[in-house]
């Protein structure tokens, strides 16, 4: 993991010499961006857990796959031997392609790994271990296929830096934060207002009774994986645009942390995933900003531990009541 330390360095602070207050606000902006990635991944964890009570440990690697898919798709669109599209058009097309293809990967995983186990009615523990292995297969499959060399996502966006009273905000940061917000509201709408969202909530409570209403359980589950993986794909792409160096293990640590964020928020609750993601990012960035950066994870996770100690089911979690 040491060789990857460059990847884990947090967004640097371009106004290091600024006033403490400005520095704090600057760090808040950075935390919002960093938290957006955690939130986008945590939403997928919480969706699948909320509906199926399955911790899909392959989810962080789905995020990685999303980043790679965006790399291949955008490289293809831009290549002179291919369609050679303009950058704007390539960006506009890469987003839907990445989302669709990544959700395809998530659905495939459900189909070949989780569904057969579910059919046999095995204990959830085995499905969770299977998910863990699926994640490792994705990581190492990527390593075997593409080699250890890192890929760099082509530039899809002209970077603009806006200075607002001494605080630097890039257009990409704004896009990332707005996307996370939009995804959250869209997801909230789907889950609380749509028919399929109602069915997802129903599965969360009692999957036995769902077929008795004439509702195909598998379709609801596939839809859940589609949503979760699609969002992770979008997150992976935005991550690759923000830190354009891809490697097969990029999803592992980020995925674990997003999972922890989801648990702290109250796993199974989409508000929890969202809030937990931002909370973790804030703690991480503030610790790194004001203390030696080697303290970051130690402090961040100690604080999360304290939160869980106080509220074992997370911030929004209620023991075995309304999930999702």
């Amino acid at each position, binding site marked *: 993991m040491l060789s990857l330390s460059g990847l884990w360095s947090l967004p640097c602070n371009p106004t290091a010499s600024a006033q403490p207050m400005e520095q704090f606000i600057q760090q808040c902006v950075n935390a919002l961006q960093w938290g957006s990635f955690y939130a986008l991944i945590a939403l997928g964890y919480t969706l699948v857990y909320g509906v199926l009570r399955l911790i899909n440990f392959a989810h962080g690697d789905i995020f990685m796959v999303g980043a790679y898919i965006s790399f291949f798709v955008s490289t293809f669109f831009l290549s002179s031997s291919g369609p050679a599209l303009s950058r704007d058009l390539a960006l506009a097309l890469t987003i839907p392609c990445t989302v669709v293809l990544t959700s395809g990967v998530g659905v495939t995983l459900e189909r070949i790994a989780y569904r057969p186990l579910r059919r046999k009615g095995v204990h959830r523990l085995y499905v969770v271990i299977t998910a863990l292995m699926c994640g490792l297969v994705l990581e190492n499959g990527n390593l075997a296929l593409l080699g250890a060399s890192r890929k760099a996502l082509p530039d899809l966006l002209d970077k603009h830096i806006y200075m607002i009273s001494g605080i630097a905000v890039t257009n990409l940061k704004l896009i990332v934060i707005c996307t996370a917000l939009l995804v959250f509201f869209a997801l909230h709408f789907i889950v609380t207002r749509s028919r399929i969202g109602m069915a997802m909530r129903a599965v969360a409570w*009692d999957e036995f009774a769902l077929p008795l209403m004439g509702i195909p359980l598998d379709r609801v589950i596939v839809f859940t994986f589609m949503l979760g993986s699609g969002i992770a794909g979008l997150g992976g792409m935005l991550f690759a645009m923000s830190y354009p160096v891809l490697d097969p293990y990029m999803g592992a640590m980020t995925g674990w942390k997003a999972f922890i964020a989801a648990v702290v928020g109250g796993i199974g609750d989409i508000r929890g995933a969202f809030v937990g993601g931002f909370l973790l990012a804030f703690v991480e960035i503030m610790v790194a900003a004001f203390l030696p950066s080697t303290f970051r994870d130690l402090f961040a996770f100690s604080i999360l531990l304290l939160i869980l100690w106080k509220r074992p089911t997370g911030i929004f979690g209620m023991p075995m009541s309304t999930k999702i």
Partner: protein
Amino acid sequence: MDTTVRDLSQKQGSALISVENLHAGYGKIEALHGISFHVEQGEIVTLIGSNGAGKSSTLKALMRLAPPESPTVTSGEIRCKGQSLLNVEPHNVVDRFKMTLVPEGRHIFGNLTVMENLHLAAWTRKNEDTRKSLDHIFGLFPRLAERARQRSDTLSGGEQQMLAVGRALMTNCSVILLDEPSMGLAPVLMYDMFRTLKRLNDSGLTIVVVEQNARLALEVADRGYVLDTGEIVAEGSGEELMRRPEIMEAYLGG
């Protein structure tokens, strides 16, 4: 007795539901040892028997629900409207064969409101106007109308049972299987529930009901089957079964 039952059912080619020599079990343990029965259109049929006799297993097998909660059919046949149900998925039993189950323990979606529960049950009726069905259900169970916007896990046991039945009606099924609808209900509510079932039956609904409270079930049923450890040991009209002292003693508590 076993052979005569089988002979009878084989003559019933036109039955709405016919079960022929059904063997089913959980893993290696067989729960149903070759049961045969039939249900005609518009009937109320009851399956009675003591705990572990295989009543619930029979209903779950009819619905084609998946293991581990439900038994796997190893041999025999289940037909509905002449077609085999063995390779039909449970949601298609509801969608295509218009048969659904009100499960034991109600299994309502406690995190949804009463209204959401009912709307969800109309899943297969996507483009239909369901307002008439809603009015019908609220007419049968006025309590549900009062509590329409309430989270359904806040309902009392009786109201939850009403919701479970209402939900089944909302699917627009013509056959409803009920597993222990009286469980946990006060006697007054129990009689109310069975009166409502009788009314639904009068308007054309076919009902198969599994009951611990056999006397109550036999009073409303057209016919009954007595199950004992996975086999059908007696059958007949409700009155007939209640008149047979040995059955009353063994299964109906005197």
